[in-house]
Structures are given as C-alpha cells and as structure tokens.
C-alpha cells in the first residue's frame, strides 16, 4: 500500500504475471491433498484464491471446512459472474468467499460452470447459510444447485421466466413489468 506512481507500473506488470507466482499456503495444502492439477491460482486482489473444478465440489468444500489447518467454518458469500464479455471459454463462474474464525484468513474459490449445462453441487450440507445465497444465484443466473433443499426464486417473482443478472438480459428488462397487475 501507499506506493508512488513509479511503483504502480511495477505493480501492473506484477498483475500480468500473477498466475505464475508462488502458490499460497492454502493452495499448497489443497494441492497436497487433491493433486497439483486440482486447482489453479485465481486473480483476486488482496486474498488468496483458486479456480476449482465443479466435479467433486462437495468433498473439496468439505475438506476446506474440516481440515484443521484451513478450517473455513464461515461461508461469507456465494455469487456468480457471467463472463460472456470476458475472454473466457466457460461462461459462468460461481464464486465462494470463505473465512476461518480460527486462523483469521480469507479465501476465495471460483468454479467455472458451462452455459450448456448450468449445474453445480449445493454446499448447503456443508454450510447451512448457503441456502438463500444459492437461491439468489439460481434466481439471477439460472444456475441449478443440485442437492439444494428448497431451490426456488428468492428476489424475482416465481413466474419471472428470465435470469436478470445474465449479461444478455437488457438493463430495462424484456417488458415483464407490463404484465404485472397491481
């Protein structure tokens, strides 16, 4: 923090090469358990992050929570990003923010989910607090959380029909408002 303008240029070059930098302690621990190819480094600023596979997500998340050296017992947030206009092959990414009360560290997991098959395992069985957060992602992006106890829309009306936070959904809507009767 607090560098001069000269250091800023240095930082920008750092950004580009960040994916090749040394993996953090959490990533090292994950690789020791699931193999080197299991996760790749993410690009979150100021926090360790990985990109994980959606297959076998549940054992992976359970490990993050139960491993005594990680013990991510607090699921901070579940959200998604529609990467339609980013240079990414797979359209969606579900992003989990984790925190450990024991070790006082944060961690971010990003899981790519393809458009053709927008399904991902639910982590409600690991952290019950994921319930509404996953419902919101389903509501906004149409990503289905398999094994979720009560996957319904949460903010939009039940018969809304579209997924408003997708990038191809227009800001002004598709005229749904005209159909509401007050």
């Amino acid at each position, binding site marked *: 923090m607090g560098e001069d303008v000269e250091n800023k240029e240095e930082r920008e070059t750092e950004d580009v090469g960040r994916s090749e930098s040394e993996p953090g302690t959490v990533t090292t621990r994950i690789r020791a358990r699931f193999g080197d190819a299991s996760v790749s480094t993410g690009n979150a600023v100021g926090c360790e992050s990985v990109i994980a596979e959606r297959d076998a997500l549940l054992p992976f998340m359970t490990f993050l929570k139960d491993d005594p050296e990680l013990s991510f017992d607090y*699921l*901070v*947030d579940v959200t998604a990003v529609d990467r339609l206009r*980013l240079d990414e092959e797979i359209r969606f990414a579900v992003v989990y923010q984790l925190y450990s009360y024991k070790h006082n560290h944060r961690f971010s997991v990003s899981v790519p989910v393809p458009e053709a098959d927008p399904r991902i395992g639910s982590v409600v069985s690991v952290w019950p607090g994921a319930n509404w957060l996953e419902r919101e992602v389903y509501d906004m992006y149409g990503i289905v959380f398999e094994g979720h106890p009560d996957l*319904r829309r*949460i903010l939009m009306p039940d018969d809304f029909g579209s997924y408003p936070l997708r990038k191809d959904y227009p800001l002004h809507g598709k005229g749904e408002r005209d159909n509401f009767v007050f």
Partner: protein
Amino acid sequence: MNTTPIDKLAETDLEEIRNERVSFERTPDMPTEHMILNFGPQHPATHGTLHMVLELDGEKVAGATPHLGYLHTGFEKLGEYRSYNQFVTLTDRMNYLSPLCNNIGYTHAVEKLMDIEITPRCRNIRVALAELSRLADHLLCIGTAALDIGAFTAFLYGFRAREVLYDLFEAVCGTRLTTSYTRVGGLLRDVPENFAEMARESVEETLRATEEIDRLLTHNRIWRDRTEGVGVLSSEDAVAWGATGPVLRASGVDWDIRKNEPYLGYEAYDFDIPIGRNGDVYDRYLVRMEEIRQSAKIVRQAVEDLPSGPVNADEEHAVLPEKSEVYESMESLIYHFKMTMEGHGPTPPVGEVYAATEAPNGELGFFIVSDGSREPYRIRVRPPSFVNFSMFPMLIRGHMLSDVVAILGSLNVIAGELDR
C-alpha cells in the same frame, strides 16, 4: 381456485397445508389444524415491505416462509452500467439507516482494487462518520424493536438523539439520508469547521438517550419477559449460518472485522467488542447498547486530533483535482475532464476483489470484478441483513405469534438491503 398475487406467492406452502387439512378431515378425532397467516407485505413491524407466510398451531408458530423481493431494485445490475463513482449513490439506498457505512464500505472495496491509499484526514473522518452512523442505526433499531413490542417511549428518546445525528450528517453531506459522501480515493468535500464540536455534541446527546433507554428497558420486567429466552441462536448455529454483527456477537462469538481485520486504521483506536452469552433477543439488545457506548468512544478519539491536510488522495487518475487548480492549471483541467465526462472516470486494473467492512448489521462486503473499463463488470453486495434473516424460520419455530416482531426487530432486517 382464486389466484390473487398473494395466493400465488404462498402456493407452495398452501399446497402442503391443504393436503394436511384433507387428512385432518378424514380423521375427525384430530382436534386441531394449522392456520396460515400472512404477515406483511404491508405491516408496520416489517420496516419496509417484507412478506412472511406463517403457519400457526394455535398461537404457536409452526413454520415461517419469508417471501423476499418487494423492494428488489436491481442495484447489482444497475451497477454494471454506472461508473465507479456513480455507484456510490446506489449504496445509499441499501441500508438506509446507515447510508454512510455503505458509502464507506463500497469505496473501501474500490480503493483496495485500485490500491489507493487514502489520506490520514480522510481516514479519521470516515471512521467518525461510520461510527456516528452506527449510533444512528442502533438507536433506531433498539427504538423500533421496543416500539414493535409495545414500548413507545424508548422509540421517541432514540429518535430525538437520532435527529441530532442527522443534523450533523446534513451539515457534512448536504443531505440527511442520501448522503453519497465518499468518492473513490477520498470524500465529496471536507467536513465543516465545527465538525469535531458537532460530533462531540451528538455523541453526548446519543449517550444521554442511551442511558434513558437503558433505564427504561434493561431492567424492565415486561421488556425482559418479552425478550429473554426468545429467538435463541447458539454460537455453533450462528457460525454455520454465517451470522455477523451484533447477532453473531450476542451468541458469544468474539468477532468483529474492526478488530480481526482492521481497516481505516481501527487498530489504533481504544474500544472493546461486547459479547453476549445466551444469543437471545435480550442479548442482542444489550450488545447493541454497549456498541453505542464503544462507538461513542471511537468517535471522540477520531475527532480528538483530526489530522490536517487534504481529504483526497494524490491520485490524479482516480480523484477529482481541486476546483481552484482546475481554473489555473492545464493538467488539472484535463484530469477534471477525464474524471467527469461520460465514459471517463476511475479505471481499476483487471481483477476481482472482495472487501468487507463492519456495518451496523454485520459484515457488509462488496465483490467487484473489473475488466479494466470505466464501469464494474460485475458488482455484488454481500448484505448482512440477507444472511441474518435467512435464519429467521429457524429462530421463530415454536415461539408465540407475538414473538415474530420481537425476533424480527432484533435481527434489524432492512428491506432495502435485503432485496437490493
């Protein structure tokens, strides 16, 4: 079947109950049946538009199904079409009881993404205003919680002190509610000259009101009967469900972002984190009361020796130059143009960031994905109310109908933040 909108929303729940009722009819010996009661969306105790379908067994609540979204405004979608500084105005409208905390939390995230260090003066002003907002938020929360279960006086005492706080916000920001006071890398403008004095006065007024409320409620037999042992949340459940803020601390978990992951220089302030023991409505009330006293301490320290100097960071690519310089210097004029014209403004590098601050209700997080353009590619708000409220069906089960408002008040659910 009649399909009014209300019926449609509650359809899933009604279906279950209807089946159950059929089975009751088949066995006439069965003495009771459950009753469905709609709580809201228009109800004075919901503090906004909030709808719950309650399943009642006599006067006991057998289940509750909240229906959200009446105040859904699409802030996250809108944010993708607004520049980084324009989004500040949207954050006002989330938790409208403490808009300054939202302003500060949001710009904190953008500054983390852009790696901007704010000035010491700006830091102290932000801390003071964040804590003053916390005072206002807690006063209103306690006041309305008491009002909802029948204690009108505490509400009026709280509102009187809150008025003084809002006069201060008006003097600083120009508005009482839609403050929009922070900017990426700094503030809208410097505080008025008598800021420290006003802050101290409003703190005094708040503490006076707090002591009055304390005398009215803390040992009040009726208040304790209505709140003790109601809506008990164990520390294990609080952690598993992701509760934060006073709700988490009332359950006995010693965690506050201001202490555990200090930002804005909170590590330099002398204050304590109150912890509850039982995790019930009463403990949440006590934790909020003590937080008011602790926040008052922080405000006094923050304005005690307010550093002099500019409030905006020296980052010409992110912060507006001084107006006097714009008139005189060519570079400043160009930067001013580049900051304000459409399609221009602060531009963070490509990347994503999650930054959390301790808002009055708990962890207020902003997750921003930047594609290197002038607008955020994706902006996500992690609202504390949303996560805290998701525990409501669990907390209310087995309690009396009249406890619904007691628990709701203690969670301090703000619909604007809940639905965004």
